[in-house]
């Protein structure tokens, strides 16, 4: 059954069953990846995935159901379960379908040329990348998860109010974990590339970066515990903001799951030089989008400007509750998800300060380049965190030795105020639709725990 027939059928049936309005969210993706190990293809993967999410108003409440199987026999159970789900909703704020905006930003997130690279070429790159990484240093024991991949996704939203939107994007990526060994100790360096044009991809550069990183960790040991200035490199800063991005969602504040809410708009929540933006269309990110999961046009906006909280991130329901307009931040975890809130492209505005200049004033501190336990070591409600970390000791403005087996602990809300300097090395991590980009930052007031 094609999606279009499925849609026509389900809209007609929904009306008969008593839904006053309804919507189908459709998304599909295809992907290719090749992973090599020891000169052979260890995994070759070709995938295609498609599904639809239905939501509709039944007795004034929103009911949900989804399916990956588009068959006529699914229409009744889909609608009946959506109606039953609507029947138990108790929340007073009602979720509503959107009629659409007058105009939407133009987004170019699809590159036809990406499809011109055939599998054989990608296999060759992966094999060459592994071979090259192993040739760089005798201590390289393995190039693990050596992968070249690309993917393509399309999504559309159509509802009974006439909303009919579609967008698609594609992306290519490659990654490698260099594992090096010295004196019986193994250290790993992970590097990835993502882009929209394989012309920007150089397997040599990626392999070199990964090997260099892994080698730089050799000889690491722990350090004494203490309160020290900490530099998070751009990747760790992204991890940190990734864990706590929920604090900026209005729905969390409304329900008491974030310390930030509409009463705090206009308040100083970060150091005076901090600008945190969330843009729907963002040249630096691969994840630009014209509309969000409810069909609301995305915006360009500062969440924090000069340290002051300017806006929270809203979907239609949380916006209605605070008496404002949606900021175009509705999200859905694929066709199977319910409407929530997410960032579009969240980034800290970079400064002119180079990485070298960022660490220069640090007499004794720590550079953190890897963090682990992100999902478990954070209390998303209180902002408290304690993460396992690896990195380097900074002494008199220079990196002196690698460090392992430490934790870094603090509180995210306090950290925002304690960012001493923001670097210039903004790097976006893209997530298909949306993304997050951070430069390195120097922060005070954190606890390092080691020996």
């Amino acid at each position, binding site marked *: 059954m094609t999606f279009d027939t499925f849609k026509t059928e389900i809209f007609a049936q929904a009306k008969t069953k008593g839904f006053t309005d309804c919507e189908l969210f459709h998304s599909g993706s295809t992907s290719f990846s090749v992973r090599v190990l020891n000169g052979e293809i260890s995994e*070759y993967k070709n995938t295609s*995935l498609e*599904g639809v999410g239905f939501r509709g108003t039944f007795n004034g409440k929103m009911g949900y159901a989804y399916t990956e199987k588009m068959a006529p026999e699914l229409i009744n159970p889909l609608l009946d379960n959506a109606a039953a789900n609507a029947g138990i909703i108790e929340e007073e704020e009602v979720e509503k379908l959107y009629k659409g905006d007058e105009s939407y930003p133009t987004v170019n997130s699809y590159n036809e040329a990406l499809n011109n690279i055939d599998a054989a070429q990608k296999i060759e790159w992966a094999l060459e990348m592994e071979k090259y990484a192993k040739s760089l240093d005798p201590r390289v*024991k393995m190039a693990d998860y050596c992968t070249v991949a690309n993917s393509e996704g399309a999504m559309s939203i159509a509802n009974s109010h006439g909303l009919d939107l579609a967008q698609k994007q594609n992306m290519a990526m490659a990654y490698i974990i260099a*594992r090096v060994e010295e004196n019986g100790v193994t250290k790993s360096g992970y590097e990835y590339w993502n882009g929209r044009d394989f012309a920007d991809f150089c397997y040599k550069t990626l392999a070199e970066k990964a090997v260099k990183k892994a080698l730089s960790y050799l000889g690491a040991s722990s350090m004494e515990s203490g309160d020290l200035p900490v530099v998070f490199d751009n990747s760790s800063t992204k991890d940190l903001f990734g864990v706590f991005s929920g604090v900026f969602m209005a729905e969390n504040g409304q329900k008491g799951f974030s310390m930030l809410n509409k009463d705090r708009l206009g308040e100083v929540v970060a150091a005076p030089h901090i600008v945190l933006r969330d843009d729907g269309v963002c040249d630096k990110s691969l994840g630009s989008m014209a509309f969000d999961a409810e069909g609301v046009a995305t915006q360009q906006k500062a969440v924090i400007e000069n340290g002051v909280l300017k806006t929270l991130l809203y979907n239609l329901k949380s916006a209605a509750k605070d008496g404002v307009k949606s900021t175009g931040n509705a999200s859905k975890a694929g066709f199977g998800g*319910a409407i929530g809130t997410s960032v579009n492209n969240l980034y800290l505005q970079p400064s002119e300060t180079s990485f070298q200049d960022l660490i220069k004033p640090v007499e004794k501190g720590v550079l953190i380049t890897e963090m682990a336990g992100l999902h478990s070591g954070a209390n998303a409600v209180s902002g408290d965190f304690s993460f*396992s970390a690896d990195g380097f000791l900074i002494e008199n403005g220079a990196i002196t030795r690698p460090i392992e087996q430490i934790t*870094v602990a603090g509180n995210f809300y306090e950290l925002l105020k304690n960012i001493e300097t923001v670097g210039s090395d903004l790097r976006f991590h893209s997530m298909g639709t949306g993304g997050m980009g951070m430069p390195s930052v120097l922060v005070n007031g954190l606890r390092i725990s080691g020996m």
Partner: protein
Amino acid sequence: MLDKQLVYDVLTAALSTGGDLAEIFMENSVRDTIQMTNGQIEKANWGVDYGLGLRIITGTNAVYAYTNDTSRDSLLKLAKDASQAVKASLKGEINIKGVLVLDKSDRLKFADTAVIPPEKVVKKDIVERLRAASQASYNFDPLVTQTSNSYSGISRDIFVANSNGLWAEDKRVYTRVMVQAVASQGNEKQTGYEAPGAKGGFELLDSIDIEKIGKDAAEVAVTMLKADYAPSGKMPVIVDNAFGGVIFHEACAHSLEATGVAKGASVFCGKMGEKIAADCVTAIDDGTLSGEWGSLNIDDEGGKTRRNVLIENGVLKSYLVDYLNGLKMGMASTGSGRRENYRFAPTSRMTNTYILNGTDSTESIISGTPYGLYAKKMGGGSVDPASGEFNFAVLEGYLIRDGKIAEPVRGATLIGKGHEVLLNIDKVADNFRAAQGMCGSISGSVPTNVGQPMIRVKELTVGGRK
């Protein structure tokens, strides 16, 4: 789930250019989720996950492809495309293997033992249980300001067939509730959390006291609200039972998975028969336990699950092995091939992984510890099997002073290296309990049980803020 002739044709097409084994994994899963926030139902969803994954193994390499479209044309195209990939990856001569006849008499078929499967559950009953948990949290203490409670019920029909003649069908029903309470005072907020689950139906809710669970979550939140930050540095750490078992899960068992071991990316490579843990440690992975969250009739490659002794009195006895990695290691599968769904190729994973009871009493362990951290409830964690470096979070912790449990402390993460920590376990008590979790790896997120009695680690790095 699929017509026998179609299965045969797909497997044949998959091997048309060579390859040693072709395998089909198909599923049809129906999922119900209900989310209550602050005592009100906020979200409810129902859905069908449906698709087919095809794997072709050649030597020790694999081609994997999946789709939701299971029409004959689509599947034959999938198989043909995959076979072209096999051809591209073959270096030597092409060896075309036949597909064994899928005879009815060989078919394995398992039913689930769920008494009340998700499709028979009345939604209002779920709402009542969630409300009872939320209410119990609020009633425990006025400092409880928010609650978040959810239910998920999943009914999975899976089907595995391969060119060696395997034909297996399994039904798996899962039920889980999550109960979270937040306590607040001024600018401080702390949370408590419980999430019991079972491989079974809604009868789980009759076997547990949901109000007590709501109260317990609230108690942790309130206790932690009044707690000071944990200290930092190395000290003895006592980890209690149930979810405390996450220490073995992260510090050891992940590194015993063939995923890392087969390619030499684990600290436990080549250690079979060697002493890797203290004498008091015996650990198992047992997928056969009835109704347990991590149990399975068959793994996701169609192999029977087993009770695998991983460590006996400190000596490494077994890795966790799936079919493909087993080929690389020259070992048979231990019934450990698992995947989240048809979108993932299977790899070696845990089921119910436990440290077994020892001989120490909990009282003697605590009274024998002059100073240290008592981790009563643990959260999740992670590990890098190549280096053995692991971490996990303490949800409810106390300091131990002069052999007594003293003031509560919060916000601690424990870190260490698995191969070092296992040798540093010096006490194992006799109060075994299991708890449920979701475990992530390259084949996705799968339900696993962790479990242990109270143990003591002589020295572990505690990452607090003081």
